[in-house]
């Protein structure tokens, strides 16, 4: 006898970190990903999508996970300053102010958001999820199902819920992440480790996919982001020594998507909800741009010689930048040595915007593409910690928050940079958009599916 009558609802979501719409389209056209092409012909549509602002994995995935903008979920980057201080801190899953969709579906959410309110009382019975390797879910918080945190997870024990998950992952020598710090020393070896890490990831995902009961399965592949950071120049350059390896990774990825998709369809036929997405795009890096050095040269930022990171900010400072380009006004009310008064802020913001637009590359080309004021893009109860300005660059100029650079422009080992405008999503074709979607808009469709 079935205790619960009603339609079976199953969803499979695959996250692929940092895969750009444009590259995916090219590879599909060139028949490099035949399986994905086949899947797309079965009632699914590929869309270009905007990432969160800033286009950083922690912010973008949190926006997707919660279905709200940073003003509501409170995550603006991998780093922040502690309130009324200059000490750097690293926000984690505990700092997220809005419930995730698996908390809403699992009926375990202790917080509320506009999204959870919308579906208040519409989720009849709790759904069990497996959430695997999604960035910014560390430490793993108790939920209805299984959770394995992704980047930046440090301790596997704290990265897993419940404990039995740890036991299994530990026993199979699971890797949370590749050691990106090794890429500088030996690129060839690093490329190899990307494949190895992907193998382990696939094995672990398959284990939970096949062996656990779930209503929703969401797994992220994060090796793609690392691949792009260090090898994006190889994505379409046949002469590049890593071209073959780069393509081989996509072929492997294509096979794995097929494996999951076929298993899913076999079990739940077409009734299930299937979706693939990335959290941001990627583009080749021409140059890194150190915004703090620029602010320093313009007299807006004054740094002491000694001290760690932002502790060096002197009282003459008007503004400073946190990765990638989150500009904060050094307000009198907000920082111990802050001097900018509330009434001066509007003029100062205009001045900074003007100055930023003068930032030009070698050929006189513009570096900054878009500048947003806090109020333009962030809405909700947690905008107090939001940056006053956020800039998005033209593709090729990777904006950075470093305080230690001697020049405004520079080079690093990285071959790829994040882009805001070129993320992608693959959704059932009955979902259509009147304008280009943003990552946080997708979440609503997931919950909607379960509430019907």
């Amino acid at each position, binding site marked *: 006898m079935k205790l619960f009558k009603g339609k079976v609802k199953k969803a499979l979501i695959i996250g692929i970190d940092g895969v750009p719409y444009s590259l995916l389209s090219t590879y599909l056209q060139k028949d490099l990903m035949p399986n994905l092409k086949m899947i797309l012909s079965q009632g699914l549509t590929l869309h270009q999508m905007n990432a969160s602002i800033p286009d950083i994995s922690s912010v973008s995935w949190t926006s997707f996970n919660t279905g709200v903008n940073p003003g509501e979920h409170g995550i603006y980057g991998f*780093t922040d300053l502690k309130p009324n201080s200059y000490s750097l801190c*690293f926000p984690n899953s505990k700092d997220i102010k809005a419930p995730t969709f698996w908390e809403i579906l699992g009926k375990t959410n202790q917080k509320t958001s506009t999204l959870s309110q919308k579906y208040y009382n519409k989720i009849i019975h709790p759904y069990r999820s497996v959430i695997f390797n999604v960035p910014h879910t560390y430490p793993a918080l108790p939920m209805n199902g299984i959770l394995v945190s992704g980047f930046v997870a*440090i301790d596997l024990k704290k990265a897993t819920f419940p404990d039995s998950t740890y036991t299994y992952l530990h026993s199979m020598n699971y890797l949370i992440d590749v050691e*990106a*710090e090794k*890429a500088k020393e030996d690129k060839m070896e690093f490329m190899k480790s990307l494949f190895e890490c992907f193998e382990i990831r696939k094995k672990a995902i398959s284990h939970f996919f096949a062996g656990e009961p779930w209503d929703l399965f969401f797994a992220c592949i994060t090796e793609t982001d690392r691949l792009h*950071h260090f090898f994006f120049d190889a994505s379409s350059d046949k002469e590049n020594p890593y071209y073959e390896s780069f393509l081989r990774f996509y072929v492997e990825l294509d096979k794995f998507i097929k494996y999951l998709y076929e298993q899913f369809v076999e079990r739940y036929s077409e009734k299930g909800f299937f979706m693939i997405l990335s959290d941001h795009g990627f583009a080749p890096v021409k140059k890194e741009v150190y915004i703090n050095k620029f602010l320093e040269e313009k007299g807006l930022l004054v740094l002491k010689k000694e001290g760690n990171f932002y502790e060096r900010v002197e009282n003459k400072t008007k503004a400073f930048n946190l990765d990638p380009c989150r500009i904060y006004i050094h307000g009198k009310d907000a920082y111990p040595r802050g001097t900018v008064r509330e009434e001066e802020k509007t003029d100062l913001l205009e001045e900074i915007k003007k100055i930023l637009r003068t930032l030009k590359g070698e050929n006189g080309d513009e570096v900054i593409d878009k500048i947003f004021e806090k109020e333009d893009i962030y809405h909700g109860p947690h905008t107090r910690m939001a940056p006053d300005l956020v800039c998005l660059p033209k593709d090729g100029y990777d904006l*950075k928050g470093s305080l230690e650079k001697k020049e405004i422009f520079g080079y690093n080992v990285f071959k790829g940079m994040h882009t805001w405008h070129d993320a992608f999503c693959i959704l059932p074709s009955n979902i259509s958009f009147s304008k280009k979607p943003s990552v946080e808009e997708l979440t609503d469709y997931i919950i909607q599916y379960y509430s019907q």
Partner: protein
Amino acid sequence: MDHLTRLENKSIYIIREAYYQFKDIAMLWSVGKDSTTLLWLCRKAFFGHIPFPIIHIDTSYKFPEMYQFRDTRAKEWNLNLLIGRNEEKLKEGMGPGQGSKLDCCNELKTNALKSVIKKYHLKAILLGIRRDEHGIRAKERYFSPRDSQFKWDYENQPAELWDQYQSMVEEEEHFRIHPILHFAEFDIWNYVKREELPIIPLYFSKNGKRFRSIGCVPCCSPIDSNAQTIDEIVEEIRISKTSERSGRAQDKENIYTMQKLRALGYM
């Protein structure tokens, strides 16, 4: 009763109670000021002769002064000293320069302690941690139910004390007992002064610098200070506004997070 005597009584009570409950007990001695204070309290609790072993976890990266201090005192106080070293990892070259600092601490401290506990079948460990010394330790008090209970009904309900400790059992199967949890840094120095406790010279100023907290050489840096006597240290701490462990490398997790982020071009 004065403040320090009250603190001392509390600690001695816990030490004796712990020994009464567990015969397979040992004390962890890092040779720093806090655990040396704890050692002193243990001696007092048992009238000079400590009836259980004293463990020193040796990462091999400690200051030479610390080894010297350890060996002199162990002899003088007739301690049953057990040294815990992760020989295997040390042979492999594990150190703060190799791999992450988190791995280094994990292997040379945590795992070394784990194997000592296993080897000697220990059921309980006395530790010299203090509530005020570190953000995480202060935080635990507020966010974990075990610490809100740990906040000491024990004076009224000694029988339930151990049940409350039960909730503190971590992955290792042993009890952790913190007899000087209620001491503040300021209390420690006042107590060191009152008891004329011997203390490692690293804590005193040399060329305008002194260590406020000591551990492994590569992960400790001295603070600016001219305090050359205990009185001067007490005065310095009284007016100090920086944290005790500011000279220590940051939280292990933070260091690792930073490393991970830097490897991908952040910060």
